[in-house]
């Protein structure tokens, strides 16, 4: 396995569609456009609020996966002179944390983002 994987080689299953950053910001459902747009704020009384919440949660979900990959690659890509042992241990711990956060996002999505407390 090589060091320093290009971003376009990050592996995803067929459910994912890769989009460019500019597409993301011009998507009417995203923080850049639409009636709920602007700084990602959710206004529950607006008619498109459910879509906005889904968009926000999707962004968090994707971000957790990317953070997991970034932390994992830090463990692999660098030798101990570049990344000391203690840093690698922290990055490994972050892998676990990001994976759990992805689990939370996915569990909420599967549950339809219903109003329930996470115990």
């Amino acid at each position: 396995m090589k060091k320093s994987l290009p971003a376009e080689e990050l592996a995803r299953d067929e459910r994912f569609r890769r989009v460019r950053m500019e597409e993301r910001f011009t998507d009417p459902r995203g923080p850049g456009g639409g009636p709920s747009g602007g700084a990602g704020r959710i206004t529950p009384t607006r008619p498109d609020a459910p879509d906005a919440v889904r968009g926000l949660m999707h962004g968090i979900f994707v971000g957790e996966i990317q953070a997991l990959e970034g932390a994992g690659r830090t463990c692999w890509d660098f030798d101990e002179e570049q990344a000391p042992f203690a840093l690698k241990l922290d990055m490994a711990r972050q892998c676990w944390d990001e994976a759990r956060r992805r689990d939370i996002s996915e569990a909420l999505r599967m549950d339809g983002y219903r109003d329930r407390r996470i115990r």
Partner: protein
Amino acid sequence: MTPASTARPAFAPWDRRELPGIFTVAESARRVGNYKWIEMRLFEALGGWVATIPELDVKMMLGRHCYHHAWHSELWHKRLPELRQMDQETMTVPPNDALAAFVDAMTEPEAKDLTIEKMVGVFRVLIPRKIAAYTYHLNATSTITDAPTIRSLNFVLQDEFTDWREGEMLVQSLIRSTEELERATKWQARLEGLMLEAGGIAGPDSVGSGPYESATQPAAQEVSAG
């Protein structure tokens, strides 16, 4: 007439720990250094593979397991100075070149359609060897002088058993055709061959080198370790 002593015995009657163990302090430290080395290589590889694996459940599992092995390496890192090895770096080595070659081979698969090979290397070849070597150490070492190592071994083995079971179930769920089965067995055979040459994660005597070694038991002062 001397009154009967009311002092409690030095050891409780049910305490069956024994002083002698098979390993000298130096041998224990050598093994612990080997353990740290393989745990590091494993957590680094799992971290690197996360980005190359498209299956979401596998990706997340590796994120979790990556930390488990990092924590194991930290336990061994902290144990080394207690075994009179203040320079942890020089002790963090593979037992031989063959094990380094095994790790190089195990971490070769990179493409996103090679998840089976990645998982087989870890869960069908490496982790069973780790469980074997750790169990041998647990059973062979002094239950008094090497108790801190035993405590860590028990923590580590609990993770290894849990992770191995999860990984093996995953491999079984990934193999769905005879072609995939052939890929898995072929890859496993290649890695087993390299591991055979290495003798295990601590070298040729990873699980002992033959009959019970009581004849070579070191003197009591040699086994004392903090």
